[in-house]
């Protein structure tokens, strides 16, 4: 393994982050707030970290899978480390652990915060928070792949590791094209959302931040009361559409716009996903209406659809305090936080594709017992799933639940109640953000013990790197 080559490519990622920090510093300079110097110094430090390997290491013609793997996982971890520089230098509520938690939460698009007063943050730092979400939404390495043309043929190796195998299934293009499609859809979706939010009455700055956060399915808001601050049905509907589209496979969105056959209307996964959203919305709205939580069915529907889409897409924006909702609604929302969006999107979590595949495996198993000699093939979106793929999905889901249970166990050890412990573990590993109980949609993670914040950040990283990526990184020296 060539460390110098690894350092060079991680440096490329650092250069991208430095550019975003410089933009944030510019925003602070224009708004004349206290975030300018922390952001400027962070940008300089990150620039230097990024540029230093490039001074010495020449472009490598091809990188091995092992090197690519270290580059991708290492870039994620290093981005989180570098991302906490502006917070640490600025001070305020950001202790070392808090800054790390906020940075990891941003890059992994979790959107969980330790801030008790978000509005006290300077505008530059608010933009940096949203930018971390936006960069993390596409994947830190993906940004470097698009921005740095010098990566050449290595794009294939790196994007192959950054994208999960399920995500790659729906891209029926060459790898280099996949990177372009992903970012074109992402940037296009963000620009349209910014414009629509501005038209609906938000300030430019708020529109920019909320659009970046919604399209990354992150959930960082510039307001303490999140989207509930605006109390505007129009803004909520714009965000619902933005969050929903961002949680669909970007390749399918691209195909739909280019009128290809494999579009979102024909996708089996999308159909199941929409059915889950519609079903959950109706069930929760009915429950809220009959529990007299909202005065009429329309308000119940409005609140229900926003919270359902916000949680299933792993965004985590809030317009209502879900702790006040019925236990039935809470359980449905927790289930949605586990299922989450589609593969190949910016959403985290177990992914609806895996859950659907798992359900199909279950049905196939039952059929196999009824007809022992039958050859039962499992297809997902028309693509035949090999046994290896099926086993991987089953193993992934099992590990996913084991990690949730371990997270719950350690959280209860620190005195958290069962609902808070379980829902926050689900929210961390699924990159959802808000949980329930003490970690509710209108609360934050400020009161969490430091060790649990660190545990939460590890779960967030594991969730973002699809569990095995992170675990393998820890045993990279033994990997032959």
């Amino acid at each position, binding site marked *: 393994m060539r460390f*110098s080559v690894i350092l060079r490519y991680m440096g490329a990622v650092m250069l991208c982050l430095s550019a975003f920090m410089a933009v944030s510093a510019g925003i602070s300079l224009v708004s004349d707030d206290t975030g300018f*110097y*922390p952001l400027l110094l962070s940008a300089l430090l990150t620039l230097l*970290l990024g540029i230093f390997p490039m*001074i010495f290491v020449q472009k490598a013609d091809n990188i091995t899978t092992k090197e690519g793997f270290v580059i991708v996982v290492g870039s994620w971890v290093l981005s989180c480390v570098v991302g906490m520089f502006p917070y640490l230098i600025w*001070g305020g509520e950001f202790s070392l652990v808090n800054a790390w938690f906020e940075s990891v939460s941003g890059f992994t698009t979790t959107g969980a915060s330790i801030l008790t007063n978000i509005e006290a943050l300077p505008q530059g730092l608010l933009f940096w928070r949203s930018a971390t979400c936006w960069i993390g939404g596409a994947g830190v390495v993906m940004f470097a792949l698009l921005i740095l043309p010098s990566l050449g043929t290595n794009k294939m190796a790196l994007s192959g590791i950054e994208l999960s195998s399920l995500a790659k299934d729906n891209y029926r293009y060459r790898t280099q094209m996949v990177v372009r499609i992903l970012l074109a859809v992402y940037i296009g979706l963000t620009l349209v959302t910014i414009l629509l939010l501005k038209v609906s009455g938000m300030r430019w700055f708020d529109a920019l931040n909320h659009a970046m956060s919604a399209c990354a399915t992150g959930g960082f808001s510039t307001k303490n009361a999140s989207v509930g601050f605006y109390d505007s049905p129009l803004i909520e509907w714009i965000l619902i559409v933005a969050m929903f589209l961002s949680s669909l496979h970007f390749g399918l969105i691209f195909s739909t716009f280019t009128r290809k056959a494999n579009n979102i209307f024909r996708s089996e996964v999308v159909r199941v996903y929409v059915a889950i959203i519609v079903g959950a919305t109706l069930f929760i709205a009915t429950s809220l209406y009959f529990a007299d939580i909202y005065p009429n069915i329309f308000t119940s529907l409005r609140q229900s659809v926003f919270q359902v889409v916000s949680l299933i897409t792993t965004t985590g924006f809030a317009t209502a305090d879900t702790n006040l909702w019925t236990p039935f609604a809470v359980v449905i929302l927790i289930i949605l936080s586990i299922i989450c969006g589609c593969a190949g999107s910016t959403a985290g979590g177990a992914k609806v594709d895996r859950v659907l595949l798992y359900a199909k495996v279950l049905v196939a198993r039952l059929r196999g017992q009824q007809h022992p000699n039958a050859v039962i093939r499992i297809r997902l979106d028309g693509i035949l799933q090999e046994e290896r793929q099926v086993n991987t999905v089953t193993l992934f889901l099992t590990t996913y639940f084991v990690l949730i249970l371990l997270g719950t166990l350690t959280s209860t050890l620190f005195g958290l109640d069962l609902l808070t412990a379980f829902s926050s573990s689900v929210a961390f590993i699924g990159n959802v953000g808000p949980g329930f109980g003490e970690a509710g949609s209108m609360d934050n993670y400020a009161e969490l013990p430091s060790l649990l914040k660190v545990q939460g950040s590890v779960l967030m990283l594991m969730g973002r790197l699809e569990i095995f990526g992170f675990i393998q990184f820890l045993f990279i020296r033994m990997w032959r």
Partner: protein
Amino acid sequence: MKGIGKRVTVAFLSIVALLTASGVISLFELSNLSYDTDAILSASSRDMEISKNLLRSVDDHRRAIIDIAIFGKEDKSACRKASEELDSQISSVRDNAPMVLQDCLDSLSMYSARLRSLTENYSSTETVVIDSLTVEVRKVDGRRWYVEVYEPSHDRFVEQIKRYTTLSHNQIAPRAAQLSKNAYRSVAPVLISLLVMIAIVLMFYFFVYIYGVKPILRINKALADHLSFKLPYKAKAEMIDEIKELNDNIENLINISKSNKKQGEDAI
């Protein structure tokens, strides 16, 4: 970028640039910190000075009143002068005082006005109507007036001045808390720069070793092996720029010398 010299120079300059930038920002934050500390100290000493002056003026007023009421002095000018001084001090404080102190300053003005009116209305004699036909002019018991009328007002005024002192000092506490936050902000850039610097110095060592030191050691060893034991020259290391050229040139030289030797042998 080409040339090992250039690479090392640029790397070195970038370390210097980082040191300078973090130093400048820390200096900026430190100067802010120093400015804030000075502001807090001067605000504190100004408040102490104001309280001291107010107490001195009240005491001057009290002494003048004792002279008039107890020792029977007729001249009230010292008393008036002390009153005027009190008023001017209160009005000068009011100009720069924050909103939270305005109530306290209003009370101070009120007590000052009360003392002034007490002094102005004081007379050593009083006209007492005994019955509808008899009116008698009596000498006022100044000591009693001082104890029963003046002293309670004076004490309340002094209490109010003490309250002002406490309140104005309480105003400094949040600024002091902000100061400690600013102190953190001037230290944080240095600490983080230091960590990044350690990472960069380690990288610098790593790159200089694998692209500078290691290839030269390998070339030297390969050359020594070739000269001593006639082993084929082969230096295995990652080489860039001039070191790569040096390696190529040595290989060429060895090849030329080999071919010259072969030609010589053929000629013989």
